[in-house]
């Protein structure tokens, strides 16, 4: 897994908001739906206002004095409008029931002021009232009732003026969050000239946030700023549009603060979330983002969705099939145990004499012993790392443990399950939109289980991919079952140990004295640390070694145990290093096969499809079954748009949801798109565009 320099992103989406504020928490800044102020000479200069020319007068001015006169007139003009209570409803499929995603409706009100400074630019300003209030962090007791985890409790209060740290943080955070908005949006338009070419115009938009601290002060929105003692990301404290945290768990929210709060600022100016979307919502989003390419992009996303559905549904059958072949696979691996023991014994013999091992053993014995016995430690170390060290014995014990049939089967089975699941988290690049994550619900994971209509097809396909041990011939002597054919996954894994004797193999390159030394030192360190550290609750700490014989026994114990574990870990690593690439290649090949069949079925005309004949009827059946599920979901939600619940339409449960990865989606990048600003641009065109100007559009950099 690729790991960013500063943060590990394992789960999707580690930094997205979890909860929306209830509508009543969004403070309406103004009662007047839209107020238009026109001032001349400054943004605050209502007192210097001069008469505003009516459109007819402007037309007359243009005809009489030319366009320049009109432009000059308008250039000196700053206009400010309040955009208030622009209710933004959104439907998110972020709930779950019966293995499917279910929908919930959320809303926040966009409240802001937009100012135009002639032809030099525009400004969007949000006044944010920062307050203090606690959230509930304790689940309601069993049988009881109370506020939900994460609900605001008590009453909001002002952040004291003396709490400069909190006030400064809020101010700085909103400023830094705005760096992701400023310089990104330009309004592009043109002014119509009657007698000459139109004048192009580009108005860069500046986004501002103005902090307000008074409990009863007017503001566009209210945000709770939680003090350092409350950690964002802890239980009941998710970051959202109404709750900012000075102290956040950086591994829960790997994105920088400025990215996180830039997302929340987007809500304050009315841009909805773009994660946990149904297929119909994604279709609407694609049409909003890229109308001309939406159809082909959605078709591609649908194909990728069906591919992921098939892979997810095949997970359990494939895992189960590998289990049936495990006796043959583990038998083949265990058959090569002798050469592994020999190689590890050689590595142990040289590796244990490394000065690092001796130094570590000496250090650990000193730490575990009373001063009186410490003078004898060098002798004990010398003896235990040379004359008394049996490399063959410890290597044999370590390898026997790692290569037991149960251990090998568990290691390979677990690794296969993880490799099967890993591609399901990969994002998909959707043309015209950007990166999207496909979220599969548990109904799909179990869609091909026993008793389902797809069980037989899935089992057949799993047998093709993984293989099945052939039945023993009549009269054959008892023994391990034979390996499946080499074209199958089980056959390929079973063949791996046969390569270990070759130069450059995992055994030859991975099992070295240096590797043994590293494992041995780590084993000694951890064992000694386990003894030296304060014991976990309920465990009595061992006393320090007070007598020489105990010290010698401890030296033997550490050396024997450490070396055995080093040998076991080397053997485990050998299996992992050998097997995991084969597992990955098999899953990659399966994905390719699924992709080919999905493309064939979803892009081939029916007549041609019938004539071509299926390459694998089980694969075809699985693809058709998953496609049918997706088609049913699409049909049930067709035309319901971005916000079905807000528009009074049905929002049936979904097997699959989607999350855009940009700033307003899962927030894993700072990507913005022009279409996201359409409501804001519409406000500008409605209230701040002049008579002579064509409608402006958003240009996002």
């Amino acid at each position, binding site marked *: 897994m690729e790991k960013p320099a500063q943060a590990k992103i394992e*789960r999707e989406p580690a930094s*997205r908001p979890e909860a929306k504020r209830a509508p009543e928490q969004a403070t309406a800044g103004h009662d007047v739906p839209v107020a238009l102020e026109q001032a001349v000479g400054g943004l605050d200069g209502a007192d210097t206002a001069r008469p505003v020319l009516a459109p007819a007068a402007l037309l007359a001015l243009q005809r009489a004095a030319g366009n320049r006169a009109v432009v000059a007139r308008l250039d000196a003009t700053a206009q400010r409008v309040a955009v208030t209570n622009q209710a933004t409803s959104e439907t998110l499929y972020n*709930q*779950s029931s019966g293995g499917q995603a279910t929908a919930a409706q959320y809303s926040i009100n966009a409240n802001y002021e937009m100012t135009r400074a002639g032809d030099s630019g525009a400004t969007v300003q949000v006044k944010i009232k920062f307050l203090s209030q606690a959230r509930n962090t304790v689940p309601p007791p069993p049988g009881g009732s109370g506020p939900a985890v994460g609900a605001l409790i008590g009453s909001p209060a002002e952040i004291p003026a003396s709490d400069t740290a909190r006030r400064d943080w809020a101010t700085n955070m909103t400023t830094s969050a705005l760096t992701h908005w400023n310089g990104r949006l330009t309004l592009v338009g043109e002014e119509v000239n009657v007698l000459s070419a139109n004048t192009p115009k580009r108005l860069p938009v500046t986004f501002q946030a103005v902090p307000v601290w008074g409990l009863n002060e007017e503001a566009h929105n209210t945000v709770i700023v939680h003090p350092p003692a409350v950690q964002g990301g802890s*239980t009941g404290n998710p970051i959202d549009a109404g709750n900012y945290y000075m102290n956040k*768990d950086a591994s829960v929210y790997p994105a920088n603060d400025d990215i996180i709060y830039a997302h929340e600022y987007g809500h304050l100016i009315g841009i909805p979330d773009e994660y946990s979307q149904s297929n119909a919502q994604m279709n609407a989003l694609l049409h909003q983002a890229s109308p001309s390419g939406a159809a082909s992009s959605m078709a591609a996303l649908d194909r990728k969705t069906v591919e992921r559905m098939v892979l997810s549904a095949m997970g359990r059958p494939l895992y189960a099939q590998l289990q049936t072949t495990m006796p043959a696979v583990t038998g083949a691996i265990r058959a090569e145990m002798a050469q592994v023991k020999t190689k590890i014994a050689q590595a142990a013999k040289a590796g244990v004499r490394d000065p690092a091992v001796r130094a570590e053993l000496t250090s650990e014995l000193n730490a575990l012993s009373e001063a009186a016995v410490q003078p004898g430690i060098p002798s004990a170390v010398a003896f235990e790392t040379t004359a008394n060290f049996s490399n063959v014995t410890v290597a044999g014990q370590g390898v026997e443990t790692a290569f037991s049939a149960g251990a090998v089967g568990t290691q390979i089975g677990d690794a296969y399950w*993880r490799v099967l699941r890993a591609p399901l988290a990969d994002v998909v690049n959707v043309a015209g939109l950007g990166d999207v994550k496909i979220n599969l619900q548990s109904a799909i994971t179990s869609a091909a289980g026993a008793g389902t209509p797809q069980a037989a097809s899935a089992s057949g396909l799993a047998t093709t991919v993984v293989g099945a041990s052939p039945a023993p011939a009549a009269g054959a002597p008892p023994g391990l079952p034979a390996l499946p054919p080499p074209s199958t996954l089980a056959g390929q894994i079973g063949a791996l140990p046969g390569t270990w004797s070759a130069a450059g193999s995992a055994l030859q390159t991975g099992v070295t004295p240096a590797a043994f030394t590293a494992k041995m030192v780590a084993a000694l360190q*951890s064992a000694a640390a386990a003894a030296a550290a304060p014991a976990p609750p309920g465990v009595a700490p061992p006393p320090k070694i007070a007598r020489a014989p105990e010290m010698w026994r401890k030296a033997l114990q550490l050396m024997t145990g450490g070396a055995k574990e080093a040998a076991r870990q080397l053997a485990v690593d050998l299996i992992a290093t050998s097997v995991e690439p084969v597992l990955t290649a098999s899953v990659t090949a399966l994905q390719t096969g699924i992709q080919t069949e999905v493309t064939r079925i979803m892009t081939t005309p029916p007549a041609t499809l019938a004539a071509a004949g299926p390459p694998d009827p089980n694969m075809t059946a699985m693809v058709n079954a998953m496609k049918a599920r997706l088609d049913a979901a699409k049909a049930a939600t067709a035309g319901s748009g971005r916000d079905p619940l807000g528009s009074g339409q049905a929002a049936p449960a979904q097997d699959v949801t989607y999350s855009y990865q940009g700033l307003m989606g899962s927030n894993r990048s700072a990507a913005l798109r022009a279409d996201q600003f359409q409501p804001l641009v519409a406000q500008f065109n409605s209230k701040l565009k002049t008579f002579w100007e064509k409608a402006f559009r958003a240009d996002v950099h």
Partner: protein
Amino acid sequence: MERVATFLWRTPPPTSVDEELALFDEGTALLVVRHGRQAAPSIGTWRAGPEGDDLATLLAAGPGPVVFDLLAPPADDALLRAADRVAASARDTPLAVAGFFGQALPAAGGPDRPAVLQVLASGTEAVGFELDPGSLQAHYLDGGRTLSWQPLPPPEIGFMTPEAEGLGGLRSPAEVSPGRYGAVRLALAPPPGATSFVIRLGGWLRRALPDHPMPEPFEVRTDPADL
């Protein structure tokens, strides 16, 4: 035994609570915690024997899975309350549980501060888990405030007991029997002013339920330990 009902407590990422209550036909309920809603740094399986109205309520809601979103609990929460009662009673009876602890060791004079990540098993059966070697992180605190965090290098070896017996857990599952404990030594680099630390780790919990032996992701955050 056959599973007859499943209940899940979840929160969306980033908090990602992941608890599962599975009810089986012979009356046993198993609670699996992979990412707990409580702060306790434990994962594994606990057992309960629901009876009476609670059992009837849970059976009636089967097979599910029924998902309880802790950030948006259902308005009619009779089922949630019944499931919560059974889950709460299960927490008294660990079946195969691993608890994780961080402990600092005395400074050794080098640039790093030695520490251990300990695991202690409890219950009546061995708990199976595997570390994600890239998941280890140290978070440094001053009081309750996080100062910084540090990704820790993947360990070379799994958990070791004080008697130098390997418990595994790295690239292969650890199977830790009840009462046993082991440790992995870590090297911390706390920033100036740090007074305590927590270890955040992830991995895969396996065999948590009899009908689902496959490994599933877990995540744990140890309690703060003094530096």
